């Protein structure tokens, strides 16, 4: 029997496999005991409140925080965290290159929203079950991020976890006023 002489299985994959995920990804848990002054990041930040009480100020809008508050900050969202005395804020956060978000919005099953920069951040108050689900997803991403270099499979896994995380936010987000 001759050896296989063909080398390009499913030719069209060459086109699609050029999609490279932007690599910057960070996820982890934090406990905030003291006020954090206004900060801003050039990447997207997903923040999930796991416990504690306090307030969050984003630009000129104030949000009371409770378990299950879930936010997505863009670079133009300067945010300040003020924990209530005796109730430190426990949060899970995930920083992701905004290119990932734009790639997610290209998903064939995603509506065409999300193209215009929103003035208030995307914000959802999750019920305990969904908050737990989002928390597990961020923890799983954090576990992958601890590795120094990610294999193709691990990068894909992170992308799928992010898809689900953004899905939860999109599903329960209140549509902010323009």
């Amino acid at each position, binding site marked *: *029997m*001759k050896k*296989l*002489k*063909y080398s*390009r*299985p*499913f*030719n*069209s*994959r060459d*086109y*699609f*496999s*050029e*999609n490279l995920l932007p690599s910057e990804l960070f996820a982890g848990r934090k406990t905030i005991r003291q006020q954090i002054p*206004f900060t801003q990041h050039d990447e997207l930040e997903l923040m999930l409140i796991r416990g504690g009480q306090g307030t969050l*100020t984003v*630009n*000129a*809008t*104030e949000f009371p925080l409770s378990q299950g508050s879930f936010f997505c900050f*863009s670079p*133009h*969202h*300067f945010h*300040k965290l003020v924990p209530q005395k005796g109730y430190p804020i426990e949060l899970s956060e995930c920083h992701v290159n*905004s*290119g990932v978000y*734009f*790639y*997610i*919005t*290209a*998903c*064939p*099953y*995603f*509506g*065409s*929203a999300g193209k215009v*920069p929103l*003035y208030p951040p995307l914000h959802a108050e999750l019920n305990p079950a969904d908050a737990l689900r989002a928390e597990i997803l961020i923890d799983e991403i954090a576990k992958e991020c601890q590795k120094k270099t990610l294999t*193709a*499979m691990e*990068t*894909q*896994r992170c*992308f*799928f*976890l*992010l*898809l*689900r995380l*953004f*899905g*939860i936010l*999109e*599903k*329960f987000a209140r549509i902010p006023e323009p």
Partner: protein
Amino acid sequence: MAAKKAKPLCGKPTSGVFCATDQYLRLQYITVRDSIPPVAEDNSLFIYVQSGRGYLSVNGVVFDLRPGCFCWLQSYHIFSIDALWEQELHLAVVMYDYPLSNYMTFHNDTAQGLRAFATTIPVYPLEGQTRDSVERLLTEFAECNDAHDSGSNLIKCGILGQLALIFFDLCGRYSITHPYSMHQWPLGWSLSLFISFFCSEDLIPKDVADTFGISIATLNRELRITTGMNFAQTLNRARINLACSAMLFSELSFHFIFSYCGFRSEVAFYRTFKDLKGMTPQEYRIRSVNTKGTPRKMVCETVERILYYMHSNYKEQISLKSMAQELYISENIIRTLLHEELHTNFKDILTSYRLRYAEALLAVTDLPILDISLASGFNSERTFSRLFNARNGMSPSAYRARYMGIAT
């Protein structure tokens, strides 16, 4: 596990049984009491056996089905399902359509993974942790099965991707212990796999027959036994399926698609497409977006690249020309794409990013307005004030007076 001799097909395979156009991102629960006749789907699908016992016959090879079995069947798998005597097979079936899997495929080393995946078995009995994770993912999928909003769809897409990764992992482990050998499989199985794998190449019956050391008559006979189709029909079906998987990507022209899929002329592509699908490629493209169930849209990655570039660089002095040079896309294409996809233009998007950033700086800092206008990417305070006034109906200083109190 695998029989050397293929089990011949009884009846012509039908399509659209599990992968109809209204079944995108939808988990189906199927009960098999007797048998499901041969099926040839145009998309891939996951099958998870919830309870019952039976057999799955794929391209002439019979696999046992028992609770916990996880299958991923592709368009080149012609399969039938039989329940054991007096038993009911309860299956959870979900379609993973090719355009979606193309959209979620990354990295150039996927071709190697694909080879390992395609040359191993399509059915794995799951145990322990892997079984738990598959069941948990399917339960989560079922929870948002009837919802078709963007959020639920993203969750479902993510779950499908995770299921695929679990399957890839199973294949990888299997291929280490069972290296691929053509002799291990019935001839029909290997032929069908070979043709689908390399359908975009310039395949002719003689070359394929020579590769396998058989005559052209044997080639056609063996293919008919396992797939119900001869060489030309199998090849055309594989090529048209490949073309369909690229249809949802609006940047790919039909001219590009036909040559990509191995057709020599556009006329042959159009004729074969119409023969197999009953409609022209243009009609197919329109129908693939206007589905009955879950809404879909065309994927245009260039628009996302443009938006990402603007989002990352709006504070800099960028222009349509500089962006076109950086992204290797012509200015006209950028203009047309933004107009067609987002109904807006370059300047509008850039100004809205810059103004959002400036609004935030006005609300949380006490920087002079000139500094804010420059930090947000505007050339002068005057331009900034004019655009700000037009957008917000007030001057930057009035905006600051109104909103700064909350922040400090």
